[in-house]
């Protein structure tokens, strides 16, 4: 009896530590699979199990032990029935992972907010970068002009990541929703640009923007030195510096970069 109900596709067969379990399939999903045979059901189940990360065709083959041609046929079938979809992964552009039609692909596959159609959106990142920096810089300037005691000046030039996130959301330059972590990655790139510094303070749980009892504060800073002396000379920027010798084809006496620089 069990096998008949299984065959008709009304029960799901699952295994747990103690033995086999049977689960009633709800009518809607049962109707979806009507008309498909066992292999397709198997493939569908595997894809379902893969959740939002999707599964690659090769992994699919291993799990289902089906030959490649079969798997491809089934996948095409399912796709035409609009039960699954293929999503290109950002990590390897040739790789395709399959997941259920109505499942949102995971960030690791699409790359999150910074990727749109597998292309890294450099301009978008640049724009966000500049906006965040302007916000922090103007905050720091306001603090400096307020002429209060230095401690207050410094503290008021800080902005929490939450504040920056709100500002960017209100600006409305982003088509997708950005989370606070996204903003924090942008602010980190500003740190690596040497324009911003960060401190972490302890915050009470429940205050706006705190994560695990901490808050990250960001502040615009000035560089500590002017561009160094070496880069003010043509030799500091010369692409053929290593091949330059007195008496050779490239030499200081005949250097065209120096001639241009001297006539500037």
């Amino acid at each position: 009896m069990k096998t008949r109900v299984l065959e008709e596709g009304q029960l799901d067969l699952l295994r747990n530590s103690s033995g086999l379990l049977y689960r009633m399939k709800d009518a809607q999903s049962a109707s979806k699979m009507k008309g498909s045979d066992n292999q397709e059901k198997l493939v569908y189940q595997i894809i379902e199990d893969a959740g939002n990360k999707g599964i690659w065709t090769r992994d699919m083959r291993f799990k289902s032990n089906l030959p490649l041609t079969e798997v491809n046929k089934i996948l095409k079938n399912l796709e035409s029935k609009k039960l699954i979809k293929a999503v290109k992964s950002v990590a390897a552009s040739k790789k395709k992972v399959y997941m259920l039609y109505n499942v949102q692909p995971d960030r690791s596959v699409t790359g999150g907010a910074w990727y749109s159609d597998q292309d890294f959106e450099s301009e978008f990142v640049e724009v966000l970068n500049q906006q965040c920096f302007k916000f922090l810089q103007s905050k720091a300037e306001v603090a400096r002009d307020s002429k209060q005691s230095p401690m207050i000046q410094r503290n008021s030039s800080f902005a929490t990541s939450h504040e920056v996130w709100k500002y960017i959301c209100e600006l409305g330059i982003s088509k997708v929703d950005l989370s606070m972590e996204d903003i924090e990655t942008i602010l980190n790139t500003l740190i690596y640009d040497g324009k911003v510094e960060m401190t972490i303070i302890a915050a009470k749980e429940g205050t706006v923007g705190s994560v695990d009892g901490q808050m990250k504060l960001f502040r615009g800073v000035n560089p500590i030195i002017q561009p160094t002396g070496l880069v003010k000379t043509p030799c500091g920027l010369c692409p053929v510096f290593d091949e330059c010798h007195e008496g050779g084809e490239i030499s200081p006496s005949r250097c065209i970069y120096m001639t241009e620089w001297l006539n500037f």
Partner: protein
Amino acid sequence: MTAQEARLCGLLLREHFGEVVEKIGTHLLRSGAQNLRTIASFLSIFQVKKSLCVLMKHGACRFSIGRKGPGSPVEYQASCERILGILRYPRYIYTAKTLYSDTGELIIEELLQRGHMTMSSIVKMVADRLTHNMEEGRSIEYNEVVSTFSKLVETHFLQRCPPVSEVVPPVSTAPTVPGAPAAPVSTGPPTPESFSDCYLVPSVSLAGRGKRRRSGEDVVLDQGTTKKNRLKPGKLTHGDEGIYWQVNFERFHLHFRDQTIISAVASKLDQTSSEIVRTMLRMSEVTTTPSASCTQALSANEVFRSLPANYSISRPILDQYLTLLVDDPMEFVGKTGDSGGGMYVVNLHKALTNLARATLESVVQEKFGSRSARIFRLLLRKRHLEQKQVEDFAMIPAKEAKDMLYTLMSENLVLLQELPKTPDHAPSRTFYLYTVNQLATARMLLQHCYKAVANLIDRRLFQTKESKRLLEKSQRIEAIMASLQASGAEPEQLTEVEEMISAPEKQQLESLRHHINKLDSAENQVDETIFLLKSYVASTARITR
């Protein structure tokens, strides 16, 4: 002593002392310590003696007992660092000018040109020069020059040369070069500080005023000296014979280092913080050894008392500034205790490290662009990163990030570290991590700086040589003009002489002067980078020893 340093030393020696000294100097630099006979193998011994004299007077060469023991001939060794210091002379003179005005500037300039001098001769020469530049009828008192000289000695910018000491073994060879310091048998040459009279100004009997030299005559006109002195101008003794003075380069270097730290604090924080740091550094000028990694601990009370008068900030505000300085990620100032209102030190080594790192970052930024600079800073912060992590943190698309990393690697700014997972080091099973080694990169950039300065000097000499004919002509014309003016000629004659130089030639001369000035100032700018990187490398070497 690298090839670039040797090339630069040769160029500097040639420019300042001539070709013979350059030959001897570079030979000594390349071959290490040698005795007189070996050096003289390719030049006449008279020339060798004179050159060694010149080098020793400037402290670029020293002699010591031969390696084979007391009986062997004296060996001479050239000092690369001292010769490279010639590059920094303009900076020393400029610093003296800002601190002690024209008198100080001229004292330092005369001493740098002559190496060692007695106090009386310096004073007389400087007074004469100052008087020469003043209007007619005014002259400068010797006492004024003496007071500036004493101030320079007090602040340790000038020091006595170590006196000639008796070498212990009786069979010692007498030094063949007169008037230079001798070295004891056992160790290297003594530092000037090891003599207690190092900074003691001798009491000299110097009375008089500067003398104005009339052009065209060598006779010095007196203005108030006695008849006896006028008859025997060269025989004045002032009681300080044998006491020679030299410029204390270490002190100038400390001053430059302090200036750089103060300006970094000013640009990072604000003016008041930099004034506080300046006060702290000034207070620890004499108490801290030059090679310390941080200054002596100063209490907040002391700092408050020593702040300059025009910076009247209240005590709580000062405490706030000090706390801010301590909390700053750059760690210029550190807190070591709580007694006396808080004990604070200036972290010299950390400051130098941060400044060197900023220099490296600025070089990468100017040469490769701001995105490569972002990758470089990222690697400096996070030490070791994989390819994928670099792309993610820096938010740069994979293709471009790869390209930039490979460019940086080809310039040896970024290194690749392999971490195998399996003993067979298979490439598919190894981690490849990118990393930046700050000290090695700083050393490499230092060599690049030396090469850049040598290139600039080469170019300057080349341009001068090209326009030699033109320069000679202009010099002749100037000499003719000067003599005509002195003997009172009419304006028509002067204009006639002036017209001997045609307009395009004048323009050429003008542009040549402009080029030479630009190259000169570029040399000074690269020297600033050299100073910073060298201080960082030396400080790190001291810490790790």
